[in-house]
């Protein structure tokens, strides 16, 4: 492999790893807090849609309006993220009831038994968020492969580097799944709110035509910034913990 080819493979590998980590973050968040089966369903559907788009359009993909996709997906993620973050902040501050998951599960299981249905069903929220995240990032990976590969006349090498990056990120995600399941529920929802808000803000602004200082590296400032803002808001409005009520299944109507 020549120096130029190595440079191409390394550039594509790093760029695609960044995109894959962004998609993985969304899928892990949905799987851990909502439903693994629905989140993986979203991943599967996005993979099929991506394969169909690539097969149908091929190199013409580079003319797709990625800016419009980014602003739509970013805007929706930001709206969802603000909802998650607001509820997680209110719960952490003691201003909103925390879920009593065991009571909720038992009530739902009892109701499902009475109806003759299975208690765990399809979660459209987890499916849709995972689908959008994987489809958007997958399209960006395809763009990277096509633009870098076509410029250097090595689409095959670029595709191999992208595939390796995605496989390594998937393996890292599988390894992180078990430790994440032990994180307390509201802490995880707080983190999901931070991630959805950060990525939504980043993609939405990019799609609307703004350029972040430092490009993708701006996420390294945006994510901690949103986290600090959330923690500061909890501190500002916090009540003593003994005033926190416990929410049962009948009261648990929140999405996040």
């Amino acid at each position, binding site marked *: 492999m020549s120096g130029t080819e190595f440079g191409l493979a390394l550039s594509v590998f790093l760029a695609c790893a960044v995109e894959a980590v962004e998609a993985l973050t969304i899928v892990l968040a949905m799987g851990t807090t909502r439903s693994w089966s629905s989140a993986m369903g979203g991943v599967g559907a996005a993979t099929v849609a991506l394969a169909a788009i690539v097969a149908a359009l091929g190199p013409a993909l580079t003319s797709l309006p990625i800016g419009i996709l980014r602003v739509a997906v970013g805007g929706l993620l*930001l*709206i969802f993220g603000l909802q998650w973050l607001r509820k997680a902040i209110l719960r952490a501050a003691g201003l909103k009831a925390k879920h009593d998951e065991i009571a909720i599960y038992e009530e739902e299981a009892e109701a499902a038994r009475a109806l003759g249905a299975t208690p765990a069903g399809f979660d459209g929220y987890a499916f849709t968020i995972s689908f959008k995240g994987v489809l958007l990032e997958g399209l960006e990976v395809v763009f990277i492969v096509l633009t870098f590969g076509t410029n250097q006349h090595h689409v095959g090498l670029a595709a191999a580097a992208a595939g390796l990056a995605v496989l390594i990120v998937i393996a890292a995600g599988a390894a992180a799944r078990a430790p994440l399941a032990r994180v307390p529920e509201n802490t995880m929802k707080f983190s999901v709110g931070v991630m959805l808000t950060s990525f939504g*803000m980043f993609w939405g*602004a990019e799609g609307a*035509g*703004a350029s*972040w200082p430092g490009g993708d590296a701006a996420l390294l400032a945006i994510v901690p910034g949103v986290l600090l*803002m959330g923690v500061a808001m909890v501190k500002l409005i916090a009540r003593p913990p003994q005033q926190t009520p416990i929410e049962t299944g009948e009261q648990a109507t929140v999405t996040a």
Partner: protein
Amino acid sequence: MTRLSAFLLGVWEFIVGDDWRAALGVVLALALTALLATTSIAAWWVMPVAVVGLLALSIRRAAR
């Protein structure tokens, strides 16, 4: 309630959630970003400022 109105209500609740003002604020902030991006003024700062303001207002409303 007809099936269509139930479907539209479901879509509204799924996308907008329980604070329509925050959703509207996001749309307006994106529009302002797009407007500024066509000028020589930097546009990236609009979304962070909007997020801080929208979240603070949303929490204030919910905490009342």
